[in-house]
C-alpha cells in the first residue's frame, strides 16, 4: 500500500527527533493529547509556539543591543521563553535557555550573547525538522482513510 512507506518514513523521522535530543518526553505528552477531534493538535501547538516565541526572541535581541545589559529583564524574558519551550518538549532549546539564564544570574554578558546565538540555531533547526515532520505526517494522512474507495 502506498501509505505504508510514508508511515515508516514518518516513524523513522520521529525517532530521530528523540535520538538526536531535539525533543523530550513532553513531546510525547502532546502526541497523547492528539485525538480524532484534534488530529493536528501537535502541529497546532508547535505553530503557536513559534508564533508566540518570535516576539520574545525579538525582545531579547533588542535588549542585547542596549548596553549595559539589563540582566534582570533578560532573565525574565528567558524565563518566559524557557517555559514555552519546555511545554512543547523542545529539549535542546530548553537546555540553552537554562544556560542563558545562568549567565544572566552571574552577570556574564559575553556568555549571554554566545548562548543566545546557539539558542537561535537550535530554535531554527528544530523548526525545520518539525516542519518536515508535520509535512510528511499530513501527506501520510490518517491511517483510516487509506482504504477508502474512490
Amino acid at each position, binding site marked *: 500500500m502506498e501509505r505504508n512507506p510514508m508511515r515508516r518514513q514518518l516513524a523513522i523521522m520521529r525517532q530521530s527527533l528523540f535520538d538526536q535530543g531535539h525533543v523530550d518526553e513532553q513531546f510525547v505528552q502532546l502526541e497523547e493529547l492528539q*485525538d480524532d477531534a484534534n488530529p493536528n493538535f501537535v502541529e497546532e501547538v508547535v505553530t503557536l509556539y513559534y508564533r508566540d516565541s518570535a516576539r520574545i526572541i525579538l525582545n531579547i535581541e533588542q535588549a542585547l543591543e542596549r548596553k549595559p545589559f539589563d540582566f534582570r529583564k533578560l532573565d525574565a524574558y528567558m524565563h518566559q521563553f524557557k517555559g514555552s519551550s519546555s511545554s512543547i518538549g523542545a529539549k535542546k532549546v530548553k537546555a540553552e535557555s537554562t544556560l542563558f539564564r545562568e549567565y544572566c544570574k552571574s552577570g556574564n554578558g559575553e556568555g549571554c550573547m554566545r548562548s543566545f546565538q546557539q539558542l537561535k540555531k537550535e530554535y531554527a533547526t528544530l523548526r525545520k525538522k518539525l516542519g518536515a515532520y508535520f509535512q510528511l505526517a499530513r501527506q501520510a494522512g490518517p491511517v483510516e482513510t487509506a482504504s477508502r474507495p474512490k
Partner: protein
Amino acid sequence: MELMKSENIVQDRQPQPQEEEEIMQQEEEEEQRFHVLAVDDSVIDRKLLEKLLKASSYQVTCVESGEKALEYLGLLHHSSPASSSSQHHHQGHKVNLIMTDFSMPGTSGYDLLKRIKGSSWKDVPVVVMSSENVPSRISIRCLEGGAEEFMLKPLQLSDLHKIQAHLLKSLPHS
C-alpha cells in the same frame, strides 16, 4: 419581503417539546461536569491545560491574567460580591477548581490566591502551577495561603488524578 418573513418565522420558531428536553438535558449535563478556571499568561500553556482538562471531560474557562480571573469571579471592584445561593455559584458561574500560574505580570498567582481565599469563593480549591522548581519557601507560602497544591509545569496526563482529587473535594457534603 415574503422571503424575509418566512426567515423570521424559522428563526423565531419555538423549540418542539422533544428539542426542549434535549436542550435541558444538555444543560443539565454541563451543569454536572466539573468546571475549571485556568489562569496563565502563556498562550501555549493555556492551550495545553485546556486540552488536558477537556480530555477528562471537564469544562474549562481559560483566562490570560490574574485581573481577568478576578473579573470573571466578580472580584475586580468589590472585596466580596453579593451573597449567593450556593457555595460555588456566583455571577451565574459555577467554578469547581481554579488553577493558576504562579509568576504572572500584574496580579500574580499568589495575589490571586489571597484574593480568592479572602472572598466568598474561598471554598473553591486553588492549585498553583509553576514552570520551574521554585524555592520551598515560595511553595510553602502558597500552601499556607490556602493553595491545595503546588504543581510543576508542564502538567502531564498523569497529573490529572491529582486534579480530580481536588475537584472531588469541592463536592458539597451530603
